């Protein structure tokens, strides 16, 4: 073993590993600072401020941006999420069913709605359905259509999340429940799903965030002034004022919700990690 002893000794010539490490780190800082300086010097600050930070335009937006646009965004998201949750659970249970056609149907559903762009689905609901089935009315008008669109998309993702969560519950739990006399359905409802739900709370919250952002697609359904959500509201104002400030404000309103939600997800994940230890 004398051989390897020699090899791991510090080399006598050239840079030591420690010197190389600090050199590499120093280079990274230099690149970062250089990039910031280049941006600060070349950016047209006056123009940027004019475009994005017009205080009176921003002030004009309140309180409507909150009481109307953000409220509608939340309303679309929550209704879509609830529909997706219910539909997703049903599809997950179909996917785990012992009946072949159910499994097959659920698989096809998930592939389709995860594979298609959300935008296309909204176009389909807003344009294709009324043309293909004249006279049919989706209940709830725009709100119903938005919930349907977001729910159909969310269900595909949530079905997979539910399935993973149900399968992550140890097999012994079902065996214990069955040995106590629970029927398969009752064991699922009383023992498995409550545990699966805890496991999937973080990914489910992520899906809520995803739907929150996708709710911007509601503008494709053709909405009235009262039905506008953040993106449509911001875009409309941006074109009437010929200024980008409303877009910035609308964007900040999204972050107002998504950043705290993301924080909650990370907290839950850390807690779950701790529980495993």
């Amino acid at each position: 073993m004398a051989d390897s002893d020699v090899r791991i000794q510090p080399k006598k010539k050239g840079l030591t590993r420690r010197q190389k490490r600090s050199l590499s780190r120093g280079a990274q800082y230099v690149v970062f600072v250089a990039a910031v300086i280049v941006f600060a010097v070349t950016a047209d600050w006056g123009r940027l401020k004019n475009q994005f930070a017009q205080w009176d335009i921003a002030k004009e937006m309140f309180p409507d941006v909150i009481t109307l646009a953000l409220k509608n965004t939340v309303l679309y998201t929550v209704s879509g999420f609830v529909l997706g949750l219910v539909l997703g659970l049903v599809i997950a249970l179909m996917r785990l069913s012992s009946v072949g056609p159910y499994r097959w149907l659920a698989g096809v559903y998930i592939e389709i709605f995860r594979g298609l762009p959300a935008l296309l689905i909204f176009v389909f609901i807003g344009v294709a359905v009324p043309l293909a089935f004249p006279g049919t009315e989706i209940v709830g008008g725009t709100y119903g259509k938005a919930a349907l669109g977001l729910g159909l998309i969310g269900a595909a993702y949530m079905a997979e999340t539910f399935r993973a969560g149900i399968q992550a519950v140890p097999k012994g739990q079902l065996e214990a429940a069955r040995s106590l006399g629970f029927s398969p359905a009752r064991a699922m409802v009383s023992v498995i799903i409550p545990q699966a739900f805890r496991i999937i709370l973080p990914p489910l919250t992520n899906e809520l965030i995803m739907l929150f952002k996708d709710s911007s697609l509601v503008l494709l359904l053709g909405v009235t002034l009262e039905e506008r959500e953040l993106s449509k509201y911001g875009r409309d104002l941006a074109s009437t004022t010929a200024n980008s400030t409303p877009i910035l404000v609308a964007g900040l309103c999204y972050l107002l919700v998504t950043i705290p939600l993301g924080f909650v997800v990370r907290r839950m994940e850390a807690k779950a990690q701790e529980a495993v230890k």
Partner: protein
Amino acid sequence: MSRPEIEVRDLHKSFGTNEVLRGIDLEIGQGEVVCVIGPSGSGKSTLLRCVNLLEEPTKGQVFVGGTELTDPDVDIDAVRRRIGMVFQQFNLFPHLSVTENLTLPQRRVLRRGKAAAAKVAAENLERVGLSEKADAYPASLSGGQQQRVAIARALAMGPEVMLFDEPTSALDPELVGDVLAVMRMLADEGMTMMVVTHEMTFAREVADRVVFMDGGVIVEDGTPAEVIGNPSHERTRHFLSRLLDPAMAQVEEETSDRPGKGD
């Protein structure tokens, strides 16, 4: 003696081409305590799991309390209410407190009222000596405590038969005693028990009969004195010597014809 409480007739069980049980005949009388011993992969856990149909037998019949479980039309959930089962990994419901672990099955399966279920839960927690842990969650209990809660949960359903699947194998050695004490208490009270175990002291002192299994068949079946004290088969002797004095075992060639890995 009247009809045996547990009766197994010509039981076969295969997993794919792997034949784990190759014709088991076994009777356990009311109030009898039977310990099933044998090397891992001998099919003893599979046999136990066939007795409440957690495993579907490939062939043969299983009767518990005179009801045939292998009858395709049997209400298996109703039969299982009479059969308590205790698992190696405890399998407590981690999202419920100790008391809720005991009351949920009573309420959902037996449709007992809230007060009645709570009363039965408290009684059974007291029997296993864990009244003070009533509000704790399983994760905060030691393995031995969890297993005693699991026994109490099974008892709260008022079973006529109790099945134990290596109940002490997942426990730290110093925690085994508490669980065995509870099982001994049950045996003394006249519970019919079928216990898959490696605890030879328990088998010797508490069991009425010891069954030695190897290779999916029952090799020996008799009183503890006969099977453990004076085994008549070479396979039993070999197994017992390895179990009682593991440090003296020799390195052996692996035999590939042994059926069933990880029962």
